[in-house]
């Protein structure tokens, strides 16, 4: 009798639309890029690799996104060197369709989906479960910058994914994502 009553009470208090949300977070190390009239462009490849599943064996890579943000400063007074910042799918950062781009003077923040491929249900086996994005930083008008001046960009990338599991009540739990992050400078072809 008591068991039935307890079960009934539990049913009465449970919300079928309640979820426990695992919020997986990671960030790259801070980077510093210097652009000049003679070297007005820099590109980087961001590679994120999942190394393990999350709690309750959840796939940490679904619904993931990356946000690149940075601050810009210049060594020259009285000039406004806009920096074209593109953030997009690997190899397509110069394609405006598949990348997000801004012309920034002091700060920027760009977000893109992080699409993992590979064996993400068993990240420690088979094809690596990984995603790649390109970040491109380019002076809009290099000639407007004095030859001895430079533009300095401090930037980093934040990564996040959210996985929901049905639960008795709504709750959030932030965790370090089981991912490795690599950044590679790319040279122009």
């Amino acid at each position, binding site marked *: 009798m008591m068991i039935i009553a307890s079960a009934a009470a539990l049913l009465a208090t449970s919300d079928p639309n309640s979820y426990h949300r695992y919020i997986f977070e990671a960030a790259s190390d801070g980077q510093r890029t210097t652009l000049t009239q003679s070297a007005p462009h820099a590109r980087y490849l961001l590679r994120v690799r999942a190394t393990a599943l999350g709690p309750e064996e959840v796939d940490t890579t679904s619904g993931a996104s990356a946000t690149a943000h940075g601050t810009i400063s*210049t060594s020259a007074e*009285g*000039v*406004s060197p*806009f920096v074209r910042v593109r953030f997009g799918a690997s190899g397509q950062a110069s394609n405006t369709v598949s990348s997000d*781009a*801004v*012309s*920034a*003077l*002091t*700060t*920027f923040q760009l977000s893109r989906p992080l699409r993992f491929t590979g064996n993400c249900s068993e990240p420690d086996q088979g094809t690596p479960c990984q995603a790649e994005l390109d970040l491109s930083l380019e002076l*809009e*008008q290099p000639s407007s910058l004095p030859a001895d001046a430079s533009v300095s960009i401090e930037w980093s990338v934040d990564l996040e994914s959210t996985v929901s599991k049905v639960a008795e009540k709504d709750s959030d739990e932030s965790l370090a994502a089981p991912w490795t992050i690599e950044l590679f400078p790319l040279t122009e072809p």
Partner: protein
Amino acid sequence: MRRSELALSCAIAWALSCAACSAPATCDAQPYGADERRLVSDERADELLLSEANESQTLHFRATLSGLPELWPSEGGVQGGALSLRLGMSYENEPFGGDGHTEMPQLAVTVSEPAGSASSPTSTPKYPGPLPSSVTAALFADCAFGARQCETLRDIRIRRIDGAPFPPVRVSWRATADATIGVCRALSPAPELTLEVEAP
């Protein structure tokens, strides 16, 4: 004076005083009843240049509702009004900006309130556009019942927040006033809404 005469005198005095202080006549009892009409003023537009931090300009708007009918519906003649100001921004050289992808100096837009105070400033986004930033201010809230004309003055101050390294920015603005008024159908009134602006 007998008690019945005294009561009659009091009743007449009350009736006279009540008639003198009664609300203005309405058209609710008329066979065609009342209707709503939305009025929109002609658009006013101009542009200004803000070059440095804290540089500002104030636009002085005067919205006037005229030709209001003598007879009003009991719910009130002027049921709402607003001044809408839309701001666009551009640089004078490339990149011109205003496209949602170019960083620009933020502007603080403050609307004066009728009591002499000012609203909290609204800030434009760091990457404004392509849709204009907009600000609205209420109009004709104090329009007296039965008035034949109503007027509201509104000052809107546009202040540039950020200075260097942002270049001078050209701010284009467009403003319209609108109002919804209740009208008595049988009267076929022709009210007008005008918007005037005085820029320094």
